[in-house]
C-alpha cells in the first residue's frame, strides 16, 4: 500500500511537472485514478498491477497535458477585433470619465448626474461595440470562414460586454431616477430618453440572455448583436433626435437591416451544405 501511495505521488508530480495544471484538476484526476485502482483490486487484479492498468486507462501524463493544453488554448483564444473591442470599451469609459471631471469641478454637473451620464453612456457604447463586433464577424465569415477559436473569442467577448452593459445601464437608470426625483420631483415619466434607456437595457439583457435560450447557437448571438445595435441606435440616437428623422439615422438603420437580412439569408442558404 505504501508503494501504491508512492506511485500515485510520483504520478502526480510527473503530471504537475509536465503542465501547469491547477491543484484542483490534479485532485480530480487523482480521485479518478484511485477509483479505478479500487475497482481493479475488487475485480481481482493484484494490487501491484492495479496502478499500472489504471495509469494506462487514464492516459499518459503527456497525452493528458496535451488535451488540457488544447482547452487552455481555447480559453486564451484571441480574435483581434474582439481584443480591440475590449480595449475600446476601456478607453471610451476613461475618456467619458475624464470629460466629466471638469464639469463636476466647475459645478456644472452634480456627482449624481455625472455618474448617471457615465454609466448609461458607457453601457450604450458597449452595445454599439457589440454590434460592431457582430458585423465584423459576419463580414469576416463571408470572406474567410472563421475558426472555432475565433468564434469562441467572439462569444466570450460579447457575453462579457453585454453583461457589463446591462449592469451599467441598469445602474445608470437607477441613478437617473434618483436625479429626476431630486430635480423634477418624479422618478419616471416614460419620456423619450427614459424609454430609450429601457430599450437599451432590454437589448443588453437579451444579448446576455442568448446563452439561456439558444446556448449553442453562434448565429443567434450574431443576430442578437446586430439587433441590439439597432435597438440601441433607436433608444439612444432616436431619443436624442426625437421628431427629426435625419438621413444619417436612416442610413444607420438601413445598413444594419440590410446586413441582418443578408446574414440571415446566407446562414439559411449555407444550412443544406452542412450535410454534403
Amino acid at each position, binding site marked *: 500500500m505504501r508503494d501504491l501511495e508512492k506511485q500515485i505521488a510520483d504520478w502526480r508530480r510527473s503530471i504537475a511537472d509536465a503542465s501547469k495544471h491547477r491543484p484542483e484538476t490534479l485532485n480530480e484526476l487523482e480521485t479518478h485514478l484511485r*477509483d479505478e485502482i479500487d475497482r481493479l483490486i475488487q475485480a481481482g487484479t493484484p494490487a501491484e498491477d492495479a496502478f499500472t492498468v489504471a495509469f494506462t486507462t487514464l492516459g499518459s501524463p503527456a497525452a493528458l497535458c496535451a488535451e488540457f493544453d488544447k482547452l487552455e488554448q481555447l480559453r486564451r483564444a484571441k480574435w483581434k477585433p474582439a481584443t480591440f473591442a475590449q480595449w475600446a470599451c476601456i478607453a471610451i469609459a476613461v475618456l467619458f470619465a475624464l470629460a466629466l471631471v471638469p464639469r463636476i469641478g466647475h459645478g456644472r454637473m452634480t456627482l449624481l448626474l455625472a455618474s448617471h451620464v457615465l454609466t448609461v453612456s458607457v453601457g450604450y457604447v458597449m452595445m454599439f461595440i457589440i454590434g460592431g463586433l457582430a458585423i465584423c464577424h459576419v463580414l469576416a465569415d463571408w470572406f474567410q470562414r472563421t475558426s472555432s477559436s475565433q468564434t469562441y473569442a467572439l462569444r466570450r467577448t460579447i457575453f462579457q460586454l453585454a453583461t457589463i452593459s446591462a449592469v451599467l445601464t441598469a445602474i445608470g437608470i437607477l441613478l437617473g431616477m434618483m436625479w429626476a426625483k431630486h430635480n423634477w420631483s418624479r422618478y419616471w415619466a416614460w419620456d423619450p430618453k427614459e424609454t430609450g434607456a429601457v430599450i437599451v437595457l432590454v437589448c443588453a439583457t437579451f444579448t446576455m440572455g442568448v446563452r439561456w435560450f439558444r446556448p449553442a447557437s453562434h448565429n443567434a448571438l450574431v443576430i442578437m448583436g446586430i439587433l441590439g445595435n439597432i435597438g440601441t441606435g433607436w433608444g439612444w440616437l432616436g431619443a436624442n433626435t426625437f421628431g427629426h428623422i435625419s438621413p444619417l439615422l436612416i442610413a444607420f438603420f438601413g445598413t444594419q437591416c440590410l446586413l441582418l437580412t443578408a446574414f440571415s439569408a446566407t446562414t439559411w442558404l449555407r444550412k443544406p451544405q452542412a450535410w454534403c
Partner: protein
Amino acid sequence: MYTTPMKLDKELVAASSVPLVLSILAEGQSYGYAIIQRVKELSDGKIQWTDGMLYPVLHWLEDQDYVRSEWREADSGRKRKYYSLKAPGKRALREQQDQWRVVNRALNQLWDLRYA
C-alpha cells in the same frame, strides 16, 4: 460466435462526447469516473474513451456555463467533484438531440432502404 470488437472512429467518439456527457448529467449529477463507467455500460464497452480525456470536456462544459461543479465527500470518505446540468446545458442538450436525430433519421432511411 466470435466477433471482433468494434472500434469507433476517433472523430465520432469526439463528436459524441458532449451529447453523451450532457445526457448522462441530465439523469442526475455525477462525477468523472461514474460518467465513464456509464458510457461503457451504455455502449457495451464499445465507446472507449481514454479516461483522462473526459476532464477537459467537463471543464469546457463548465466554461460554457452548461454545467456546474462542486466538491463533495462521498460515502467512502473520498472527495469527488460532482457535476450537474444547468439550464443552458439542458437547452444545449435539446439542440444536440435535434441535430443527432436528424443524422440518425437520415442514415436509418438510407440503410433501411438499401439493406431491406
